């Protein structure tokens, strides 16, 4: 059995087509996703912009203006890099020279935010600049609104300032949205694509098991017949083929994962060992399904590989691999027909990685892994039944 196992591994590793579909293709696709989403992600990120602060007497007269600048500069996600200038002329000079994209100044008792023409043009085409400038602009507007409100209250109902709850609410941000996080890690669209891709990559490795099982069948090839003449039970040859397919599948998928994780930076929240454990479970399921397809009687290896490829592509659709509409379709099936989503192996394999990344508890991961294990048992049982019933009448 050991020599069959080793020979089977050598055979698989020397089949360029199989290795391409099981390893190279997912990596190529992952690279394409990475390139695609890298541009999208950078265009929606926040980049601190160089802003001049006109630090004149009027500025010093604005209560809290300097605090606002410091807050915008020192926040977790800084939106500006402040440079103090003595007057508006100096700020305009910086704008002309490109040293700053805008400036903040006190004007008529309010905070004014001025941006250069070139910055306004850039903001239209560069999402990061546009978003950052709009955040600064919103902050300035909010500052002015609060200042005006405070001034009005001071003019018409100054006694309100004696009420602590009023003064507390004056500067509060209760009307604004607050970011909260339900998951362990913030959801990220590219991650969903890459995990769906891992699901597809896993199912692609089915071809290895299909080849191994088909080559052991006497009714499909002379090679299979020759092997069946050997003085050892057929299950040993089949088991060796299955284990070899599983090992090679797990290695291929692990390599795909390593590329996605360490080259493209898609994390699993520091739970890499669980990711590899998940790969072991997932590829066991894929090899089991491959064995089932490989055991189909009266069909050559070519048609069987065709069936597996078609099945993988179709199931990947419901796992959301092909874009936003596919993701919405997958989500709709998950909501309306959860059982159908549960029996989609591609979705379950990608779900394994979502479970690892997003949930604090490992319980969802264990549940998905158990589901995949049950699928494996069912596939193997059907394959064993088919192989057991097969006679050699087709020679």
């Amino acid at each position, binding site marked *: 059995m050991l*020599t*069959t196992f080793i*020979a089977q591994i*050598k*055979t*698989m*590793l*020397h*089949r360029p087509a199989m290795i391409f579909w099981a390893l190279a293709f997912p990596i190529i696709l992952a690279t394409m996703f990475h390139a695609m989403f890298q541009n999208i992600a950078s265009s929606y990120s926040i980049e601190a912009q160089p802003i001049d602060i006109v630090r004149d007497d009027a500025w010093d007269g604005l209560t809290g203006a300097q605090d606002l600048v410091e807050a915008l500069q020192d926040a977790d996600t800084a939106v500006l890099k402040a440079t103090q200038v003595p007057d508006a002329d100096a700020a305009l000079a910086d704008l002309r020279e490109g040293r700053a994209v805008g400036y903040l100044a006190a004007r008529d008792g309010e905070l004014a935010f001025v941006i250069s023409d070139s910055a306004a043009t850039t903001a239209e085409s560069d999402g990061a600049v546009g978003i950052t400038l709009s955040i600064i602009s919103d902050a300035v507007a909010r500052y002015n609104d609060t200042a005006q409100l405070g001034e009005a209250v001071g003019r018409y109902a100054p006694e309100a300032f004696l009420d602590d709850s009023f003064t507390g609410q004056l500067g509060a941000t209760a009307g604004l949205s607050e970011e909260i996080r339900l998951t362990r890690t913030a959801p990220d669209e590219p991650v969903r694509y890459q995990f769906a891709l891992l699901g597809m990559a896993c199912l692609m490795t089915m071809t290895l098991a299909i080849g191994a099982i088909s080559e052991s069948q*006497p009714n499909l*090839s*002379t*090679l299979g*017949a*020759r*092997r*069946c*003449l*050997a*003085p*050892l*039970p057929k299950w040993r040859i089949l088991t060796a083929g299955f284990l070899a397919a599983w090992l090679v599948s797990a290695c291929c998928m692990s390599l795909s994962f390593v590329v996605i994780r360490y080259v493209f930076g898609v994390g699993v929240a520091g739970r890499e060992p669980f990711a590899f454990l998940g790969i072991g479970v997932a590829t066991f399921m894929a090899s089991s399904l491959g064995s089932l397809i490989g055991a189909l009687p009266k069909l050559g290896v070519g048609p069987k590989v065709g069936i597996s490829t078609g099945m993988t592509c179709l199931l990947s659709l419901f796992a959301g691999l092909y874009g936003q509409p596919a993701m919405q379709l997958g989500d709709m099936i998950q909501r309306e027909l959860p059982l159908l989503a549960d029996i989609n192996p591609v979705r379950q394999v990608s779900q394994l990685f979502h479970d690892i990344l997003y949930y604090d508890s490992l319980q969802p991961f264990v549940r998905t892994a158990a589901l995949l294990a049950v699928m494996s048992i069912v596939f193997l049982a059907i394959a064993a039944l088919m192989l057991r019933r097969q*006679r*050699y*009448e087709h*020679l």
Partner: protein
Amino acid sequence: MTTSVPPAVSVHGLVKRYGDVLALDYFDLDVRQGEIFGLLGPNGSGKTTAINCILALLTYDAGQVGVFGSPMTPTSYALKRRIGVVPQEVAVFYELTVEENIDYFCSLYVPDRRTRTPMVDEAIAFVGLDDYRRFRPGKLSGGLLRRLNIACGIAHRPDLIFFDEPTVAVDPQSRNAILEGIMTLRDRGTTVVYTSHYMEEVEQICDRILIMDHGRHLALGTAEELKLMIDTGERITVQTLDLTPATLEQVDALPAVIEATYDGQQLDIRCRRGETNLIDILGVLERSGTNIGHLTSRPPSLNDVFLELTGTALRD
């Protein structure tokens, strides 16, 4: 007291049906230990079915199959260990080297690596593939591939080997090497069951020959014994350009002549066994004034035996 040696293969009353098609019709066969046994038959005659039944690759409807005196079943592992098969198609892994292939197929019979290694070396040397150990099959010529196919079937030193048309599509040198190798195996005591469509090969190497058709045993014996079983005793060929239809009729009417044909250049006459066939035919030609260019007479070949027993109608 003498101990009778069981036949290497014994088949009695074997019946195999594929639906309505009767592939083996109470087929009988006995192969003695240590002989090269030729199994001949046209395409679709049941040769492959018979071999697959013997090897327990196929189930059958009636009859008994024994190998070395024991019943052969799919789980007769002790018997299977003594059997080697060289299929007609090259059945090897194209991703493994010559040495890895032979080692792999040998390992199915001989698990222990230390025992196996000299066997693999011997098989490689036996088929002359020493210089190609590290080659993958895709890099080998047709003849070398056939030799690799043979090495994979014999490396575990079986007592009984089935060769299914091992010389198809190989050049004369490789064919000769393969045939000599098979005779060497026989000389070492191995029993060989050999199927081929090349009659001269079968005649050259087989100790006994069985001709079968329509799933039935037609004739069995040595090549000489088979030749004696047919009507044809002699084939006479006369080169002549002026044979008239009347003379052809006279030749055909001779008692010893089974069949006479003329294609405008050559007169072919198939005769029964007889002492005076040539004299009688020459007499007719001389009397009719036919000019004779060249004349040959030869005894019947195995091909004549085969065609007479199985007919000349085309098969699949």
